[in-house]
């Protein structure tokens, strides 16, 4: 599902200027495309980072001359990078004499372009993203219908990072890592590490048929199951209440918060 989906998302997030795309290439899990503001790299949220890196490396090796010296914007709206991942990516790009432009800078550039164009002429402006729409990403991620749905068990060593909510139909095993900007719902046994509401969405929650995580994080809070306590064999939900992560049985058929 991933690749097509991703490039589609890029186009829509990039906002209604399909006529201006100069070059688009999709290889495996990465989407690298030319936009008016330079190259934009999108990474698929489900794939292990090492594979993404390999795919990118292959893509760059195909035409080293073409990419040489280019500046690349990183679209992190679907996948967030950890510090060491970002370092690895920058190392790879440095090999091709390329550099990373943060997406925020791109947004600023777009904004500036938009202002300029609206001032200069009215007839060439319709392809500019309205600012309010572009800013939607800053609002509660759960309000955007961009939930990542995964229908398999997430195993040790696999990491899923997504800016919005994640639903998993399957287990999350020890050693697996799920990080979501919104809620995390596991229709299965949750035994790995989950981080809902990353980085600071305190209204996010975690639900699971059996909640037995190694560690559970919501926004900036972290909790571990009490030592020696076995997991309840019934569905539970974890959310922040009064500045603490509270786990409650899913009894009434509705989330405990709100």
């Amino acid at each position, binding site marked *: 599902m991933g690749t097509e989906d991703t490039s589609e998302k890029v186009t829509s997030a990039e906002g209604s200027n399909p006529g201006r795309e100069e070059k688009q290439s999709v290889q495996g899990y990465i989407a690298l495309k030319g936009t008016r503001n330079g190259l934009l790299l999108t990474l698929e949220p489900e794939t292990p980072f090492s594979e993404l890196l390999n795919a990118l490396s292959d893509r760059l090796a195909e035409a080293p001359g073409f990419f040489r010296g280019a500046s690349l914007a990183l679209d992190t709206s679907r996948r967030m990078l950890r510090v060491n991942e970002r370092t690895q990516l920058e190392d790879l790009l440095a090999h091709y004499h390329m550099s990373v432009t943060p997406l925020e800078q791109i947004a600023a550039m777009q904004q500036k372009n938009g202002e300029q164009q609206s001032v200069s002429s009215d007839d060439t402006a319709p392809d500019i993203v309205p600012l309010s729409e572009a800013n939607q990403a800053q609002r509660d991620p759960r309000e955007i219908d961009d939930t990542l749905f995964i229908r398999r068990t997430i*195993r040790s*060593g696999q990491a899923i990072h997504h800016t919005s909510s994640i639903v998993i139909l399957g287990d999350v*095993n020890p*050693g697996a890592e799920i990080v979501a900007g919104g809620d995390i719902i596991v229709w299965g046994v949750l035994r790995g590490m989950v981080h809902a509401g990353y980085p600071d969405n305190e209204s996010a929650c975690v639900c699971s048929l059996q909640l037995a995580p190694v560690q559970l994080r919501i926004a900036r809070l972290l909790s571990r199951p009490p030592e020696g306590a076995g997991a309840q064999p019934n569905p539970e939900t974890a959310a922040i209440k009064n500045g603490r992560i509270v786990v409650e049985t899913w009894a009434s058929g509705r989330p405990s918060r709100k």
Partner: protein
Amino acid sequence: MESRVITITSGKGGVGKTTTTANIGTALAMQGKKVAVVDSDIGLRNLDAVLGLENRIVYDLVDVVEGQCRLRQALIKDKRLPELFLLPAAQTRDKNAVNSVQMEQLCQQLRAEFDFVLIDSPAGIEQGFRNAIVGADEIIIVANPEMASVRDADRIIGLVEAAGKPEPRLILNRLRAEMARRGDMMDVADVLEVLGIDLLGIVPEDEMIIVATNKGEPIVYDKHSRAGRSFLNAAQRIMGEEVPLNEIADVPSLLERLRRLVGFGPALAEKRVRS
């Protein structure tokens, strides 16, 4: 008959990959199949010693892929079974001496000659592991009933799936039924609950394996060994025969029997066996 290339892997070291490869290979050959066992643990070879063929090595896997010798020159015929052959690993080289393409070609070559090609994978998830699975049709995961091994097995299952291979099957090795029953060790249901793959066999802990390994004589030859019988059963299941999974059926505890009677409790191991 279609030739089958099967890789035996685990992630964690010391769980019994080599012992499993040697015994299942021997068991398949005892059933009249033509079998090659391949040691892909380059630099840390062991399979030859477990089969008692160490002193017959002239050429090895690296020699074959580098074209120093023909495949047939490197294959060592077993002491007892005329249909069992070993392709040993190089001891003086390392995992990077072979790449995935060479390994895949080697598997194709072996396929033409044998009914079964069993590849003994090195521990870890690096190049050596990738080489071991690249040419495989099926993967067997060996795990012990303890947390570290199960977690590594889980990681390997994920990598095997990512490599586009079919879902692996599990051999649960070194199970101590008594400890598991007391709850001091993970039992079969605990392991299957996490891994969620089909069970190919359960091998009880058996001191005789250490003796057999040191003698270079696979335990499947020992008719009285329960571990030997378990490996034989696993080999028969690989060949598609229906063998009931009674390896742990010492005597189920009273509670266990009660739970089974009323249909509660951990999913029965038998249910997960693929015919």
